[in-house]
């Protein structure tokens, strides 16, 4: 059986969480762009 690479797993789990947390912030960032910009 392949060795259990704990630290690499932790890094990938953290990277995955990190990406999705950034994506959630991005959602609210896009929402906040709306304020008062519609002059067309």
């Amino acid at each position, binding site marked *: 059986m392949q060795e259990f690479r704990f630290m690499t797993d932790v890094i*990938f789990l953290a990277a995955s969480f990190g990406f999705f947390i950034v994506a959630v912030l991005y959602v609210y960032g896009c929402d906040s762009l709306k304020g008062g910009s519609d002059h067309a």
Partner: protein
Amino acid sequence: MTSNGWLQIAVFFVLLLLSAKPMGLYMARVYERKKTWLDPLLGPVERLLYRLTGVDADAEMRWTEYGVAMLIFSCATLLLTYAVERLQAVLPFGKLLNPQHWPGVEPYLAWNTAASFTTNTNWQAYVPEQTMSYLTQMVGLATHNFWSAAVGMALAIAFIRGISRRESKTLGNFWVDLTRGTLWVLLPICIVYALALVSQGAIQNFKPYDTATVIEPQQVTAPGPDGKPATTTVSTQTIAQGPLASQEAIKMLGTNGGGFMNANSAHPFENPTPLSNLLEMLSIFLIPAGLCITLGRMTGSPGHGWAVFAAMAVLWFAGVLTCYWAEAQPNPLLHGVNQQVSMTSPGGNMEGKEMRFGIANSALFATVTTDASCGAVNSMHDSFMPLGGMVPMVNIMMGEIIFGGVGSGLYGMLIMVIVTVFIAGLMVGRTPEYLGKKIQAYDVQLSMLYVLIFPLIILGFTAVSVLLPAALSSLSNHGPHGLSQILYAYTSATGNNGSAFAGISANTHWYNSTLGVAMLAGRFLMAIPMLAVAGNLATKKIAPPSAGAFPVNSTLFTVLLVGVIVIVGALTFFPALSLGPILEHLLLRVGTSFS
């Protein structure tokens, strides 16, 4: 090119045309929660699922809530797949579901694969039959084929609601859309489809791999344990088995593309006959084409749905024409050699192609699979002639909107519709309107964010990779073809396609991690601005049609839409293509190739 080849391409399109409308109208009923003939069977299952998960099916979501729910679901399922891959050697029922005793998947590869299947990309940096247990294939990968497809469809439906609703703050309920798309659309079709594939010869079992004695033993020279070349006689062949047909069905219908076998749809177990080949190509386009009709029905403008369908069909035809023409040409390096193979295959580039499919069906499959974000292959794109190989790449560079991925193709196309309507408005000096809704600065800003993220990821990662020795060492060819291999890899990942110029050895730390990031960014960082546009459109009033409004169900609209897509794609990627496949084509004409 042969009349036989064109006849087969024509049959494919006629069947697509006939199936798009019933499929689209059925999906409209499913997502509008109207009665369908499957309700007696699936209604209780749906209600049970909501009760078990605590979902309030009547609750409506703002676009931000819809987007966050989608992200939470995707994050959870990504981590589930990662865990299943890493732990496959110790998971239960190993004797039945891991008969080859495959060890846990290496972390970089496991993460790349988890990101790949979560984003509907199905980029495969591994050899499935030498890496994944049956349990991983089913629980980690096939389930994702359903989920990622259902997520894409839900997002497209949310966008359609954004267009069709008036002065509404909400876009529907993500959990309901996800559930209904899976239960009513994907599962029933896949059950019938998998049985049809079995009837053609696709396998479905849990047997350990078979061993066969080859008719003619082969002498094979390969590096031995000491690194020196050693010749061995190969007299047996291992034949992989597994629950293939059930994964094959959703792989095509969900435009996922990840093969159960490494050879993908070129493998006789995955794609046994010309009939299965036709079914597989049709199933790639079935939902994306149907969603155009769903758009027309749900927005009350069937003509608009068909106008969008027509724009997709025009771009599809341009691709298949170019690819078929390029592959049917004799290789200029073999000048003077009779390359005719048989009466039905009158020469041309057969390298990397199955004899049973030939050039026409290989070119058609390559075009279809890259128009949609499927990525399954029945021939090796790396072996195509330079211009033939450029077609799949350009198809993805257009943004995977030529029918496109299930859901993602339609919402990508609708973003281009907004850009088109905006440009048309600029031309005549009026406030742009789209189906009675004013397109304002916020909508255009977010649409352009969607359009610009895509090339930024592709060209950024490609530029870094051509400077890194570690990245360059993965190439099987140098010169312009090597650039094409890298460019194709990041284009395919960001476009969530998943096909490859197979010459690149992508199972390295660099490619596994950066392609994983490209896949996640290409899916989610583009879907979010799209949802923001949808949410904003939903809040607007619908004005009655005026004489100055640009009709979006006309031929002029289709022409303008195609023009905008081609110009945006061409302007963005033409310099990179000039250094890759176009340069390779020109050099090949004068007899220069690269090893």
